[in-house]
């Protein structure tokens, strides 16, 4: 047992409570404690990434050993897939916390902000590390409720409205998930993901199975803002403070949406063809509709939010193709390639979308506006922001030396090899439209200088913000190394193996 596993959840939670207690006496305490906590967690997660590899660690909370092969306590599971998402959460988290230090000084009640930030991180870590479906629900609520409050942090009209919309849809999603859990418990009488798999593999009723899958897909799809359920995302992501937008877009929808969908549909349910086709269709719709909705936007953060939907579409599409191939039971290596593309794009999206939201926040911090038509000529006055946003824009549009290119290339190759030519063509077209959209962003924000406007007052943002952006920019370039053999095998392969091997995950519990 790895004794670090519970600390991933307990350190941020305890930190949040400590911040609320000390916040009355020392306001500065919160900002440094948050950065410290997240630095420690990021170090832990990188260490875990290094040691986990193919060995999965199961942590039995409370020391309750399984009785007759049936788990009776809650299990925390750390495997190749969860450790990747854990790294994303904590590394983006530490950069966002650093970025927040100057940014959040414009708001009142800093300590509430940092406390909620820590709770959100703790909740997401809890979701990712959990091996128990009800436990996932509980920690999902921790992170969701803190994100509702963070979206409304500025308590202006539009922020409250966005938060209300987000809360209603989030509550609906929670109810769908809870109903799904109730139905699963009704049938299987157990809550452990691996044990549920054991029960399902002894036989299941097809209608029941489809109903539960649709409920859970609806619930987590709402959290992940897949296309029929995307209504809350642009409002929530554009209204939140910028570091929170980066967290929500870069991490939150992945950790509580995509991660759980992939985990449940690969490791809890037996992959069936009809649901994998449904997932692929939803991914394709997200990819295409998201980018078309993004075209007409002039608010930077709304534009980025719609692109998040579109880029998540790539991930879902790619994993959906993998699922279809697994369900048909042929060409497992192409399925593995498709899933690898999805996971790789998941990691890359965290880097470049987090960076883009940091840039948007920096522009807003400096110029005070989010409207593309009102800004311009920032290339001279904000060199660091300009350079990093250029890297991120090229990366999200799939231009060769940057990471986005490699993941999109893998996805497109996998789609072609699997015989989905139309989807591959669509992915290319969407990528081109994304490029056009980001060229517009670059042109209006940094070059196209409007008349009667002096850029003297626009200064580069404070040092911690620049530091976060530069680190993210470097990550955008370095992550492309993941595509190359040697590194790919050590990091992505264990995650793909745990997803594609039908018995590997459930054998964790039974030990066979």
């Amino acid at each position: 047992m790895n004794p670090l596993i519970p600390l991933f959840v307990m350190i941020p939670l305890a930190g949040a409570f400590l911040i609320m207690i000390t916040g009355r006496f020392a306001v500065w305490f919160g900002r440094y404690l948050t950065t410290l906590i997240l630095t420690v967690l990021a170090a832990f997660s990188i260490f875990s990434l290094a040691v986990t590899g193919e060995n999965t660690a199961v942590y039995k909370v409370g020391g309750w050993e399984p009785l007759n092969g049936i788990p009776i306590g809650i299990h925390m599971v750390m495997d190749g897939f969860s450790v990747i998402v854990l790294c994303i959460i904590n590394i983006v988290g530490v950069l966002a916390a650093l970025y927040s230090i100057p940014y959040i000084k414009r708001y009142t009640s800093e300590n509430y902000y940092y406390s909620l930030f820590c709770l959100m991180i703790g909740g997401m870590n809890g979701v990712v590390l959990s091996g128990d479906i009800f436990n996932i629900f509980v920690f999902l609520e921790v992170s969701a409720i803190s994100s509702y409050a963070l979206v409304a942090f500025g308590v202006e009209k539009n922020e409250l409205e966005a938060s209300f919309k987000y809360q209603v849809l989030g509550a609906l999603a929670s109810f769908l998930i809870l109903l799904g859990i109730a139905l699963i418990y009704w049938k299987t009488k157990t809550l452990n993901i691996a044990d549920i798999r054991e029960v399902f593999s002894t036989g299941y009723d097809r209608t029941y199975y489809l109903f539960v899958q649709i409920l859970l897909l609806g619930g987590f799809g709402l959290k992940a803002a897949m296309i029929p359920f995307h209504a809350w995302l642009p409002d929530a992501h554009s209204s939140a403070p910028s570091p929170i937008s980066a967290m929500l877009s870069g991490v939150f929808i992945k950790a509580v949406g995509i991660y759980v969908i992939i985990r449940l549909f690969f490791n809890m349910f037996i992959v069936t063809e009809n649901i994998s086709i449904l997932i692929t269709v939803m991914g394709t719709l997200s990819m295409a509709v998201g980018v078309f909705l993004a075209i007409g936007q002039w608010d930077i953060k709304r534009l980025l939010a719609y692109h998040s939907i579109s880029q998540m579409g790539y991930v879902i599409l790619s994993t959906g193709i993998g699922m279809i191939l697994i369900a048909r039971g042929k060409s497992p290596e192409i399925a593995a390639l498709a899933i690898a593309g999805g996971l790789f794009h998941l990691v890359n999206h965290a880097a470049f979308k987090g960076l883009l939201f940091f840039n948007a926040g920096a522009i807003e911090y400096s110029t005070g506006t989010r409207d593309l038509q009102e800004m311009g000529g920032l290339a001279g006055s904000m060199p660091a922001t300009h350079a990093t946003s250029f890297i991120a824009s090229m990366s999200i549009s799939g231009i060769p030396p940057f990471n986005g290119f490699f993941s999109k290339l893998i996805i497109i190759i996998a789609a072609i090899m699997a015989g989905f030519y139309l989807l591959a063509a669509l992915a290319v077209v969407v990528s081109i439209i994304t490029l056009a959209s980001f060229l517009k962003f670059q042109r209006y924000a940094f070059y196209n200088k409007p008349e009667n406007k002096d850029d003297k007052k626009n200064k580069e943002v404070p040092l911690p913000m620049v530091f976060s952006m530069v680190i993210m920019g470097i990550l955008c370039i370095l992550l492309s190394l993941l595509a190359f053999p040697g590194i790919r095998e050590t990091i992505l392969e264990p995650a793909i193996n745990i997803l594609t091997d039908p018995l590997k995950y459930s054998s964790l519990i039974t030990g066979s």
Partner: protein
Amino acid sequence: MTTIVKKTTQLMAGLVFLYGIYIIIHGHLTPGGGFAGGVIAAGSFILIILAYGSDFIRLTRKEHGSTMYENLAILIVAFLALSGLFTGACVFFLNWLPRGTTGELASAGMLPLYNIFVGIEVASSIVTIFLALVIFKEEMSE
């Protein structure tokens, strides 16, 4: 509110609070526990706030005090949970205290401790939520 309401509330609130404490302490023996008892204890405070209204608000002025109790209580719960890590077995959420005889008040190891601190946490959380709403209304109407 009238004097009758205020006086009756004074009498009742104490009883309700005691009942809440009873429920919390006997949580591992009879129905109820930290959550039920905590919410009942919070109910007694809410009664007083409703009866005394703005007088009570002038007394407390800020909701920060109760926020501190709830955060302290849950921090203690977290440390109790983590305390299992420091014992020899090194297990999170280990119930390492002796179990005692089932049915006695001092039994079930850590469970009464969890009950008590979760009870404090729930009670002060709900009081804080309520105070925040009441103070918000007062401040907005000023």
